[in-house]
């Protein structure tokens, strides 16, 4: 397709970066969780964010999705600063996300969960919705069309009317993915999508992420412990340790970076923490 070149690697760097993270510092009281990290995610790129436990991945991720406000630094999306914007605006900017420990609307059906993700596409308020004015109907029909496409893509049609809490974990993860995708985001933030999945499911996920990137022509930022998955699907990998960036490059470059090997295998005694 049009962006086959992008799928091949970090070729799309010629285009302006979609997400730019500059000199982000996050302090909680006296603890510095993130100490001046910068990186960029390009259009149609899959970027993996890795690092040992406590490296600051999730903190950084929460800054990008607006849950935390960084102490210092700036985050730009499509060239515009989004640091400190209200959380409910992020989806409108085109940033969708999933959660590490699943944050589905438990009592709602799969269908309603996914449709909830389309909230930011609609404008019909209380009055228009209660009266079913033409605009409200049109919006509902459009969301419905997107819903059916996604239920098909993620193999959720059979469980569409089932309350989401009664589904197995792997299925719930797909529901969350559908919910994040329905609004057509430009950047998808995935917090440990492979967590809790078995071997076969991880293989399926790798293929699915590639497929999603192609179909929705979006970028993905992936926080993940599952090294095999990250190295397999990412065009670019950013490695963190103790709140600092220790590597940034293609999976092969990062894999052979001595700092990364040291951080993961603990070759040298860790006296850097001080």
């Amino acid at each position, binding site marked *: 397709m049009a962006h086959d070149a992008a799928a091949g690697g970090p070729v799309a760097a010629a285009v302006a970066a979609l997400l730019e993270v500059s000199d982000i510092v996050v302090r909680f009281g006296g603890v510095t969780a993130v100490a001046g990290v910068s990186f960029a995610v390009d259009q149609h790129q899959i970027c993996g964010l890795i690092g040992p436990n406590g490296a600051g991945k999730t903190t950084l991720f929460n800054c990008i999705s607006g849950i935390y406000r960084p102490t210092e630094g700036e985050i730009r999306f499509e060239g515009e600063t989004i640091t400190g914007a209200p959380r409910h605006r992020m989806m409108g900017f085109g940033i969708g996300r999933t959660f590490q420990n699943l944050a589905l*609307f438990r009592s709602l059906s799969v269908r309603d969960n996914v449709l909830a993700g389309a*909230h930011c596409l609609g404008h019909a308020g209380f009055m228009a*919705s209660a009266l079913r004015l033409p605009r409200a109907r049109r919006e509902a029909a459009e969301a419905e069309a997107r819903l059916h496409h996604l239920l098909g893509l993620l193999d959720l049609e059979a469980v569409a009317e089932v309350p989401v809490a009664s589904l197995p974990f792997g299925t719930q993860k797909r529901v969350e993915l559908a*919910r994040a995708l329905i609004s057509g985001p430009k950047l998808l933030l995935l917090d440990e999508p492979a967590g809790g999945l078995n071997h076969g499911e991880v293989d399926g996920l790798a293929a699915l992420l590639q497929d999603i990137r192609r179909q929705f022509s979006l970028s993905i930022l992936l926080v993940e412990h599952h090294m095999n998955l990250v190295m397999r699907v990412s065009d670019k990998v950013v490695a963190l340790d103790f709140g600092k960036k220790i590597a940034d490059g293609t999976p092969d470059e990062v894999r052979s970076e001595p700092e990364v090997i040291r951080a993961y295998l603990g070759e040298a005694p860790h006296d850097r923490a001080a």
Partner: protein
Amino acid sequence: MPVATAPARAESRPLVPLAILGLALLALAPTFLVEGYRLFQLTLAVIYAVAILGLNIVTGYNGQISLGHGAFYAVGAYATAIMMASFGMPYWATLPIAALICAGLGYAIGFPALRLGGLYLALTTFALAVAVPQILKYHAFEEWTGGVQGVFIAKPDAPFGLPLNADQWLYLFTTVIAVAIFLLSWNLLRSRIGRAMMAIRDQPIAAEAMGMDIARLKTRTFAVSAMITGIAGALSAIAVEFVSPDSFSVMLSITLFVGMVVGGIASILGAVFGGLFVVFVPNLAEEISKAAPGVIYGVILILFLFILPTGFAGFLRRLAGPLLRRWRDGATTNQDGR
């Protein structure tokens, strides 16, 4: 093939409004089949159903526990009574104004409610319910509220020379308005707004990440809820022909809460059952034992919650679920077979 299944679902939809139409006709039938005091009781049950629906929207659907909805009911009732008695307005013209007053009040209370979660909000709204009857007695407002005496208003007669007595007209008028409110609520709760209400109740952080403005939605939901319960209060003033501070004690708020739980939390149809329950079960209790109706009522309530823990609506859903699923699957196969 996601496209192939889409029409099947869309076509199964019109049956829902059709079912509602059937229920609406069923609701109107008692005008001609029931008489006198029984019809008056039914009118009250319809009014309570509307009030419980209002409470259910904010508490059942949006998860903001209110133990003080009797306050909005009281304000709606007094608004109508004062407009009729002091300003000579026709009863029907007072309803939209009473609705707006209650919506404004609900909206105002929605803001402090944002800062108070769960049980704290329940207690705060409870305090509102405790305060309102006393405020209504306050002597500075006596010129309008009639103080402890309350306000008497006249029962409306059927308009346009309709061959209905006052009781019949009252039932018809109340029920038509109630059906309209139920239909609008049905639309609202099945729209993106209703979905957002439930999403915020279930998982506020994710709801926010989905682009839902929690403060805005919660305050507006509170306003809509207060408005609906306020309209019920206004209708009750017309039906009872009288308002007084003691008709709106804390017990009223508790009664609405009981009706909501018994009918089914987060259920539209459950509100109808809740309305019937809170009007007729105390009567039944009194028939069983004149000495201790409260005990009988309590026992019935406990038995009820024991047998139907998810309320009447949950019970219906459990009954109808398998049937509905079979019917829906049938519809889908037919569509595909075409």
